[in-house]
């Protein structure tokens, strides 16, 4: 199937996808409840959209397309309330967080849908280990070239989103010492990482995608698990590095930060992105995953060592006029607070210290998702 043409969409519009965990209220382990939950939700109209995910203990919600923070967070809150209410009726716990702190991958049940079965057969334990929960943010682009420009220009800011959203310190019952351990699971896939450095859609389509398709390794854009990937059918780029935050407000704030950054980058005041920007990409990404806001990154152009927290604060200040123009000032304020009080990963570690158990961590995440 050749790559579809890049649909034109309203620039700087945004949409959010959140993968959420379904857990049992007694043992706090993941619970294969998505068929029951979807059955109940189908009885009433849902604000946005809700779909099954690869394992039955996960569901995904999508927002509609929005232009500002107030609308987006209002809709996400409404979706959240609808979900929480339905889950209460079925005795299911629902929460955010990039990983489930103690689930055992061997016990997951794969949702009965042919594509999921195929993925499971191909990737073996990786597919079940892929029981991780991410937030994807879509930003509308005026054309394919803009999309590729943004995709590469944003690479320098990817660590910001990892550190600000990080909410997966625990895996299989242990503290990994990472703030976002979830991304380590994504790395395991052969088609993960960064997109090839191409700035023209024409070239991407004919010089890269069609060749890759010809090799038989991939069939569609869906087979690429890149950190940022273009989504031609929506006319967007999709940022995929964020852990699902513990609250929908943070999810909305992260989307609006990305929106403001895109507005700034499209004014093309920064030096053009270059292949060499990627020399430090994996290192910076690791720093953000491992140390979160306390990480130290290397600037891709100047090779200067920067505190990630400082770099985020500087960028947030720089984005203030753009956020104001887009109606996203409250979003940046929210993220500024995060740099001071710590990320969701920190919150989860505090809960572990207080309750003494990984089950207590899930319990706290469920309560945090509600308020």
């Amino acid at each position: 199937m050749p790559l579809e043409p890049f649909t034109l969409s309203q620039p700087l519009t945004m949409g959010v996808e959140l993968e959420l965990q379904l857990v049992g209220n007694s043992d706090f382990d993941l619970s294969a409840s998505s068929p029951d939950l979807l059955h109940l939700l189908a009885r009433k109209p849902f604000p946005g959209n809700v779909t099954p995910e690869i394992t039955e203990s996960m569901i995904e919600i999508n927002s509609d397309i929005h232009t500002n923070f107030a609308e987006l967070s209002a809709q996400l809150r409404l979706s959240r309330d609808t979900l929480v209410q339905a889950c209460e009726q079925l005795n299911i716990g629902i929460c955010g967080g990039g990983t489930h702190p103690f689930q055992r991958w061997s016990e997951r049940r794969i949702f009965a849908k042919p594509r999921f079965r195929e993925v499971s057969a191909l990737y073996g334990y990786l597919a079940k280990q892929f029981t991780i929960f991410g937030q994807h943010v879509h930003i509308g682009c005026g054309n394919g070239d803009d999309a590729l420009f943004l995709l590469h220009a944003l690479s320098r800011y990817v660590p910001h989103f990892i550190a600000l959203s990080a909410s997966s310190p625990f895996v299989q019952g242990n503290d990994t010492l990472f703030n976002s351990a979830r991304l380590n699971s994504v790395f395991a896939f052969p088609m993960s990482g960064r997109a090839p450095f191409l700035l023209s859609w024409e070239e991407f389509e004919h010089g890269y995608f069609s060749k890759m398709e010809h090799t038989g390794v991939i069939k569609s854009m869906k087979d690429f698990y890149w950190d940022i990937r273009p989504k031609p059918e929506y006319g967007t780029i999709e940022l995929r590095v964020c852990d699902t935050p513990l609250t929908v407000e943070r999810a909305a704030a992260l989307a609006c930060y990305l929106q403001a950054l895109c507005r700034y980058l499209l004014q093309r005041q920064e030096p053009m992105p270059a292949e060499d920007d990627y020399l430090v990409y994996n290192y910076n990404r690791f720093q953000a995953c491992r140390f979160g806001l306390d990480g130290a990154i290397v600037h891709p152009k100047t090779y200067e060592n920067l505190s990630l927290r400082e770099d985020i604060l500087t960028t947030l200040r720089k984005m203030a006029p753009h956020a104001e123009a887009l109606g996203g000032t409250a979003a940046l304020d929210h993220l500024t607070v995060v740099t001071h009080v710590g990320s969701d990963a920190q919150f989860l570690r505090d809960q572990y210290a207080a309750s003494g158990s990984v089950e207590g961590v899930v319990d706290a995440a469920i309560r945090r998702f509600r308020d």
Partner: protein
Amino acid sequence: MPDILVLSAELAWPFAIALAWLAGEIIHRWINVPRISVYGLVGFAVAQAFPDLYVSDSSSPVTLLANVAFGLILFEFGYRINLHWLRINPWIALTGLAESAATFAVVYAISHAAGMPPLTCALLASLAMSTSPAGVLRVINEQNSSGQVTERVLHLVAINCVLAVFVFKVVVGVWVFRTSGSLAQAVSHSAIELLASAVMGAVLGVIVPAVLRQLGQVGREGSVAFALAVVSLVAIAHAANLSPVLATLTFGLMARHRRIVITRTERNFGAIGELLAVLLFVFAVTTLDWERVVSGASLALALLLARFVVKIGTVAVFAHPGGVSWRKGALTGVALAPMSVFVILLLEQTKYMGIVLVDELAALAAMTLFMEVLGPVITQYALVWAKEASSKDH
């Protein structure tokens, strides 16, 4: 040379348990039948083959161990009940009340029509209301199932068991007081007994988590503390003629709501829990007698069929307003089939009163045997049909 008969009497239980376990593993792997069904079959077979070796009165160590085993299962069961859910979704409690009441009415009517005296009918009907919590929980853990059928079965069983214990005690009370007392006296006597049992469980349910919190340790140590508390509860309930069923169930409920979490590895209380469960399911059927089973078989079949249909129908009717499809509702009703261990232990407990019901009710003996073996199989199929059991192919 030691007397062969003494020796065999000493070895009777260990052999039966080992045989049951081995048969359970082999047959479970071979045709995927729940292990506990096999334990029941083996127990019944050895008890019929060597009736003299498997006599146990209510104070024998085996009876006490069986009660401890049941207590551990009930504790874990109570631990999985979410009272908050019953408040939020009142349809669950309503379903439980309706299906219990309907079962009572139908079983009472049929046995009355079969010519039984009213009190016997009432006893039979009260026991038929209940579903075996042990059978259901063991199958759920064995299948590692999760979903609405699983959740609802657990909560409905809790409701119908509490109701069954209450009604049963009231009927027994009436029986005992028939000559001297009144219905009011019987009700109040039973109510006090149940209340005392529940309070005892609740108090421990507060104390044990508090102690664990002080120790600052949860996990494996937690399981040991809970198990010891269950053993003490069962012993106290026995000594004071209270209901160990209600006490351990309340203990689990309370401990859950005090938010101390048992780690997953300790499901079924680990290897010791498994061992005691084999003993429990073997023990339960050794109290039954083949001749009574045969003579009560036809009435038992009619009653079981009626109970089965009534439970499925009632649960299915309430399914849609309760938030699930009618199909899942019906399967929840199907999964409520097991009934045995609970009934037998309840009866054993009343032996001290001089009421030996199993002996009077041939139909009950047959019902218990059928349901001890078939019940878990039916529950397992309900979970598989509801697609809630973990399939083993990936």
